[in-house]
């Protein structure tokens, strides 16, 4: 659906040149949710804006839905843009228009006749659950509701691709979840290709099929979310995975526990989405002849399984403990013995 080839964007300012996007090659398949993660300044926004020519590439190709975007100008470009919806971090709604009128806006731009517009807007308000607020102005809505309007608006002209630039970064965790659920819903219902940008691994983890990690304008790692998660290769990717799986404060609170539980090694287990944690623990106890003392941890469930960290103490003789650790590794659970912390 989207192909980027040797794509670069260089901003020239009076003093220097900033290579915001540096020789990026990327293919995004039809119907997938593709995440791009990176720290602030990595060039994510510039990359996503290159997809609908809000920025023009310095070099390289941008093909979206079979069209070479960088060769388009004027009317053909405006028409191509109607096939690409965009959702923004700060919503970018027109404050002078009601919910209904905001969603109607892209339809007016596409010169859809009035009766059809009304029908379509009503469907969209239904879809995002805002039918009751049709006549409210953006200033009367919560952040989550504003983003729902933003999403409905982006979907108005039945686009093939939806671009989300930090669509949940201005929202609290609970609202983030509801917006992410809505995106998954849309992706499944309409088979819409979604490209989303974020600096939060949580977002990638929760809804993306594939991910690209961006650093200094380059894509340094990409692949299926699970693979990238399980075997992060680059330092930056490891940091993102860590950000997710490791709860710093949990580690701190575990240290004192070492003194209270002297009779066995303390092990940190990291679950990175491979199945659920209970069967692994149950088998551990049954097959390896160790007893497992759960000290602390935080496990979250996502669409692919559980992830998170669990601190346990293994009690038993040395060979059983060795066996237990081997068993855990076989089951794709990262186990790290912490006794020497």
């Amino acid at each position, binding site marked *: 659906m989207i192909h980027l080839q040797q794509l670069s964007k260089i901003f020239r300012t009076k003093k220097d040149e900033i290579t915001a996007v540096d020789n990026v090659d990327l293919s995004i398949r039809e119907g997938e949710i593709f995440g791009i993660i990176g720290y602030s300044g990595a060039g994510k926004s510039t990359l996503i804006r290159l997809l*609908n020519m*809000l920025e023009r590439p310095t070099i390289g190709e941008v093909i979206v839905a079979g069209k070479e975007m960088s060769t388009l100008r004027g*009317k053909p*470009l*405006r*028409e*191509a*843009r*109607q096939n*690409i*919806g*965009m959702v*923004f971090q*700060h919503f*970018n*709604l*027109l*404050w*002078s*228009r009601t919910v209904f009128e905001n969603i109607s*806006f*892209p339809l*007016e*731009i*596409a010169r859809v006749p009035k009766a059809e517009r009304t029908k379509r807007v009503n469907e969209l308000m239904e879809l995002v659950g805002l039918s009751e607020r049709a006549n409210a*102005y*953006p*200033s009367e809505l919560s952040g989550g509701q504003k983003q729902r309007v933003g999403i409905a*608006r982006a979907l108005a*002209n039945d686009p093939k691709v939806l671009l989300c630039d930090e669509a949940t970064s201005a929202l609290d965790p609970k609202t983030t979840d509801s917006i992410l659920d809505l995106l998954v819903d849309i992706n499944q219902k309409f088979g819409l290709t979604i490209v989303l940008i974020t600096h939060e691994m949580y977002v990638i983890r929760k809804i993306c099929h594939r991910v690209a990690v961006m650093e200094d304008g380059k894509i340094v790692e990409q692949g299926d979310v699970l693979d990238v998660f399980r075997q992060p290769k680059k330092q930056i990717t490891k940091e993102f995975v860590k950000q997710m799986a490791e709860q710093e404060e949990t580690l701190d609170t575990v240290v004192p526990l070492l003194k209270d539980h002297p009779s066995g090694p303390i092990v940190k287990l990291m679950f990175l989405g491979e199945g659920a944690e209970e069967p692994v623990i149950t088998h551990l106890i049954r097959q390896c002849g160790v007893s497992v003392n759960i000290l602390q941890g935080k496990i979250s469930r996502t669409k692919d399984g559980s992830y998170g960290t669990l601190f346990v103490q293994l009690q038993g003789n040395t060979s059983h403990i060795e066996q237990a650790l081997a068993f855990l590794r076989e089951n794709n659970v990262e186990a790290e013995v912490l006794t020497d912390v």
Partner: protein
Amino acid sequence: MFKQLLPNVNWSNMWEATVETIYMSFIAVVITFILGIFLGLVLYLTDKDNLWENRMIHAITAAFVNIFRSIPFIILIILLIPFTTFLVGTMLGPSAALPALVIGAAPFYARMVEIGLREVDKGVIEAAQSMGANQWQIIFKVLLPESMPALVSGITVTSIALVSYTAMAGVIGAGGLGDLAFREGYQRNNPDVTFVATIAILIIVFILQWIGDFITHKTDKR
């Protein structure tokens, strides 16, 4: 009772002058509104990083606006006498005041329009572009509606300034309340005429302010 307190006031003349003032102000406000928005849009759109970025046109428009905004109105009227005579055919009567009124007020308003347009969220313009909006749609569906409260409060201030300009224009024979206050009131030493003319101008200004505030408030949904 009025007869005793205000012996020299000829009410039918007073009414006629009031109508002339309202006529001059109204026509001038309408033309200033259109011309000011046009100039304000040009100033804004040709500025750096905007839709029609163009240094040359921006500099020329800005210079024009700054020059005419800086000339004191009374001098502007005199400078424009040949132009007005050419355009209107006479230097007498309310219509003769219009060119000077508009040329004095439009640049003033254009700057306010430009400031209002600058307040429009760049993100919203970008959102419209991402939907495939063309320039005209961005101007008429985004820029102008989103800056409407600023445009309305700007034209309110401008129209009040225009009312006082009409009073000055009266001095060169344009008629209206300023003319009446000067000729009948001051030159013939009838302070009661000046007094009533002043009250009439104040009433016009208060009504304008009230209408302006009302519309500004109505359009502001932020």
